[in-house]
C-alpha cells in the first residue's frame, strides 16, 4: 500500500514556504517540501535567532513549541554538521523544520534565548558532536561519562570507542 497524497496540504505548505522566503530573503537559502508534506527551511547560520524569533512571534506562524534540536554529521562536506530544529505550531497545528550548517570550530548562536527548551538539546549536541553554542547559559557534558574524551556521534568515532571497558 502507498500513503495517500494530500495535495491540499502540500499546496498550503508550498505557499507558506514561499511566504517565508519572501519575508526573510537575507537568511533563507532554500525551501523544500518533502513528499510526506514536511516543510524545511535551509538557513545561513547567522540567521538562527532572527528566523526562530520570527517563527515564534509572527501572527501567521506561531511556532511556539520547539519539538527537537538535533545534528547530522556528513564528514564529506566542508561544513560537516547540519543542525536541525523541529518546531510545532499549536495554533495552526503544523510543523516546520529549520536546518543550519557549521563546521567543527565555528560557534553557533544558542537558541535558548528564543526557546527555553533548547537548553538540554544543545548540551546534547555539544556533547555528542562538538558543536559549540555561543551565549548558552550552561554548556557542559550531559550524556557521556565525566572524564570522557571525544564526541561519540561523529562518523569518525569508532563504534566501540577508544577506551577499553
Amino acid at each position: 500500500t502507498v500513503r495517500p497524497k494530500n495535495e491540499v496540504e502540500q499546496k498550503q505548505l508550498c505557499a507558506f514556504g514561499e511566504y517565508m522566503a519572501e519575508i526573510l530573503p537575507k537568511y533563507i537559502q532554500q525551501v523544500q517540501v518533502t513528499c510526506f508534506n514536511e516543510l524545511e527551511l535551509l538557513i545561513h547560520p547567522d540567521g538562527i535567532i532572527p528566523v526562530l524569533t520570527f517563527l515564534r512571534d509572527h501572527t501567521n506562524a506561531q511556532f511556539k513549541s520547539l519539538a527537537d534540536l538535533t545534528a547530522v554529521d556528513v564528514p564529506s562536506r566542508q561544513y560537516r554538521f547540519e543542525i536541525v530544529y523541529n518546531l510545532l505550531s499549536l495554533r495552526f497545528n503544523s510543523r516546520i523544520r529549520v536546518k543550519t550548517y557549521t563546521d567543527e570550530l565555528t560557534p553557533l548562536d544558542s537558541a535558548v534565548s528564543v526557546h527555553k527548551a533548547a537548553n538540554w538539546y544543545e548540551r546534547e549536541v555539544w556533547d555528542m558532536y562538538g558543536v559549540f553554542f555561543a551565549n548558552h547559559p550552561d554548556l557542559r557534558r550531559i550524556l557521556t561519562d565525566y572524564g570522557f574524551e571525544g564526541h561519540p556521534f561523529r562518523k569518525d568515532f569508532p563504534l566501540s570507542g577508544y577506551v577499553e571497558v
Partner: protein
Amino acid sequence: QTTGLVGLAVAENPHERLRILYTKILGVLQNIPKDAAYRKYTEQIVNQRFNLVQTETDVQKLEDKLNSGRIEEVIVQAENELSLARKMIQWKPWEPLVEEPPSDQWRWPI
C-alpha cells in the same frame, strides 16, 4: 469569569489594549523600508485585526470573528508581534542573501 487558561488573567477593556498595541505596531513598522515584504504582510494582518476590533464591541463575537483563541491570547500575540517588529528593525531581514552555501551543502543523497 475566567479565561480558562492557566496563567492568563482576564483582561478588562481588551479593545483599548488592542487598539494601543496595534497603533504601536503600525508606528514601529513605519521605520522599515516600504518595499519590504515583512512590512506589507504585517500591515495587512494588523489592519485587518484593527478593523475587526473597532467594528465589533462584543467580546465573544470578536473572539469568534478573529478565530484565534481567547481575546487575552490575541493580546499576547499582539505584544509578541510588537517585540518582533522592533527586533526586525535591527536585523533587517529584507536584504538579499548574506552568503551562498557551498554547492554540495544541501545535496541529499550525498
